[in-house]
């Protein structure tokens, strides 16, 4: 199979996945009586006129047949036209993009994921070369512990220690409220303050992620290090660093690509919790607020977008895999 055919196959598969998510999302929210029930109760209410009833029926599209509604919903999902939020009355897509929530989430997720991957892989490679040593047991134990600690609990303890006790970092929010009123400060101060606000949530999400990468890197490295070509490289007298990173890690890195894509859904879960703890004005906090406030159009749109991002992450991982490991094309 050529690379092009492989990519084509992946694209078709990705489209099928997107359709699956759209259909699942539809059925989940069909189970909620929410809007229909509320408007249905208007019908028997003597204070509500039939015009009001009609108005609300039209507003929420309840006068249409389920098939028509599905059709409308389906195109809405494809064109990112999710309707209006019950709470803010703005179009949901505006609340996602224009409000800066998407940017905030990307900032938090991006920095912590990069840090988590770099730290996890570095430690994993280093530790695998010293199997059974103190640093090996130590870092595996720490990784397992951060793995077992609830991410929201880490966030709360960090707030208690670093903001309430030591006053080093603000206890929450993405940036000071005063910016909203008086506009952004000069660039240097802007960056510094945002970094200060970013640090704690980023630290929590990094700790949430690095353990998995460390353990996985260590496991695949241990397997690779017992291969003959590693012994050969060592016998050639190559530097240990070259052996580890150039010879062993290059081959051990393949499962990491898939694992990081598959783990992306879990990371999103961690991001929801972190954003909630730190009151970080991103998509996770917004999803949480919409669930608490029963804002169904937002819930539906957010679930779709989160699932879509996992699908895209998997698609990208498949592409990278296809490029760096030619064997996969002949499966």
């Amino acid at each position, binding site marked *: 199979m050529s690379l092009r055919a492989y990519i084509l196959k992946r694209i078709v598969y990705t489209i099928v*996945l997107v359709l699956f998510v759209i259909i699942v999302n539809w059925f989940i929210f069909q189970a909620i009586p929410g809007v229909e029930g509320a408007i249905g109760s208007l019908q028997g209410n003597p204070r509500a006129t039939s015009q009001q009833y009609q108005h609300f029926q039209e507003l929420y599209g309840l006068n249409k047949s389920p098939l028509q509604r599905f059709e409308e919903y389906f195109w809405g999902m494809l064109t990112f036209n999710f309707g209006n939020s019950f709470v803010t009355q703005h179009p949901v897509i505006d609340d996602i993009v224009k409000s800066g929530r998407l940017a905030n989430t990307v900032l938090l997720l991006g920095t912590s994921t990069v840090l988590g991957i770099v730290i996890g892989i570095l430690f994993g490679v280093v530790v695998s070369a010293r199997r059974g040593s103190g640093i090996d047991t130590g870092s595996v134990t720490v990784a*397992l512990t951060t*793995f*077992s600690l*609830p991410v929201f609990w880490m966030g709360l303890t960090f707030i*208690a220690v670093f903001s309430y*006790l030591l006053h080093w970092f603000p206890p929450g929010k993405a940036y000071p409220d005063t910016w909203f009123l008086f506009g952004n400060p000069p660039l240097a101060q802007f960056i510094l303050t945002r970094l200060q606000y970013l640090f704690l949530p980023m630290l929590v999400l990094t700790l949430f992620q690095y353990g998995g990468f460390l353990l996985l890197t260590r496991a695949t490295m241990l397997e690779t290090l017992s291969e003959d070509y590693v012994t050969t490289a060592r016998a050639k007298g190559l530097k240990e660093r070259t052996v580890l990173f150039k010879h062993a890690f290059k081959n051990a890195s393949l499962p990491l690509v898939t694992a990081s894509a598959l783990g992306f859904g879990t990371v999103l879960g961690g991001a929801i919790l972190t954003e909630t703890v730190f009151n970080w004005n991103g998509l996770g906090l917004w999803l949480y607020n919409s*669930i608490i406030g029963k804002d169904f159009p937002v819930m539906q749109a957010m679930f779709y977008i989160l699932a879509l991002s996992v699908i895209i992450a998997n698609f990208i991982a498949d592409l990278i895999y296809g490029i760096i490991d030619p064997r996969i094309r002949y499966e």
Partner: protein
Amino acid sequence: MKSGTESNLKFNLRRFANFLRLMLSNKMAAVGLFMFLVSAGAALAAPIVYPQNPQNVASAGFLAQPQWVSYFPEGYYLSSNMVVVNNPGFNSPSALQEWSYSNTAQSPYVSISTATIASTGSIQVFSSSPLSLTVYKTFHYPYRGPPSRFTLPSVAVRSQGASASNPIVFSLFLNRGVERSFTLWSKNLTTNDAWISPSYPLDSGSPSLPIAAGVQGGLLPFTEVVFSREDDYTLGFTVTFSAPGTINVTSLGLRLLGNAYGLLGADSRGSDLFAELLWGARTSLFVGLVASFIGIGLGLLVGLMAGYKTGIVDEVLMRFTDMMLVLPSLPLLLVLVAVVGPSIFNIIILIGFLGWMGFARVIRSQVLSIKERPFIEAARAAGAGTRKILTTHIFRNVVSLTYVNLALAVPAAILTEAALSFLGLGDPLSISWGQIISNAQAVNALNDWWWIIPPGIGIAFVSLSFVLIGYSLDEIFNPKLRRRR
């Protein structure tokens, strides 16, 4: 036949003993097992030590600090719980011993006794002449600071011989020393043979109580106004007869809820945090174990089916698994729990039904390689059917994987439940560790580390125990991973 099963049992027992020995020789497994036994012990002991769900019991004052804080210099003002009246129901004549009477009680016109009216014990005061009489109990309040809250049971009085023209006046009071008297409730009794209680709760938090005592509008909380210092306090009631009559009083007690309590203090509703911690272990372990059993069972089923049956069954099952795998689990769970409602049953089912995909893939790939081995072919040649081959031959070869994945699925389920509870989508009726942390955040009590830290450690402790057991099982079952010695 009987001896056959017996020897079989013996063999299995010996095998299990050998397996245990193997596990205990592994340091990681031994630590994990020990940690699991500790948490399981806590979960089992919880209803024995604290028979009632601690969420429903006000054990101490709101936000009470741990008892041991009072031994430190900064805790000098803390007070503890006190029960002032031992028998508030006057169920036996000996209940009178803790009470004292004013001088008029000596007069020949008065008699004081206990009486049981319609199975309700009470203290009965009879007077044949118009006079005033006080029944009281003096107690020493030994703390420098005020209690967090004090409550009295809803006192009930019943009069005989009273009328609108000749009322019996009943007044309940709490005095500090001899200088200050606080009337908690007073009532002109004019009707006969009916139990009468105050219309407001006799609780220091009730706004009616300071009004009755005539100290409303002050800046200090009522508890601080009353218990302003270490002193002798008097609880009692005064009855004024204007004609011969009888009065019965019951539910006459006083309970002081301190602002220091127990090992870990109390939460914002006065519930014992240590009891909640023990009860939380039950919820976490229960949800973790049952949900992961469901998930692993489903995964085993799907994996065996997909691996053994090739063709369309395999294709459909695996495509479906891949699709499910792509749905982000926590957002999906949040949305689903919001839809179906947060009961513990729903949460377990949902976590279980969203946790089978990874394991199904593992089992499938294992089955794919096992079913090509000669012994399966031999079994088929010997006439074994699909079910026989799947349940005995193939299943026995993946059972070790099942154990490992089961152990690793439990912490995931526990953490998921904790996350749901933390986000306010846990079962409100069964306290869990996530909920304790959520409660602390709701009142912004992040500085009360005795509230925040223990449940987090609990979650990590239980999760880590299963992770350790899982990894060591993996090492035991999978000789490739065993370290060369």
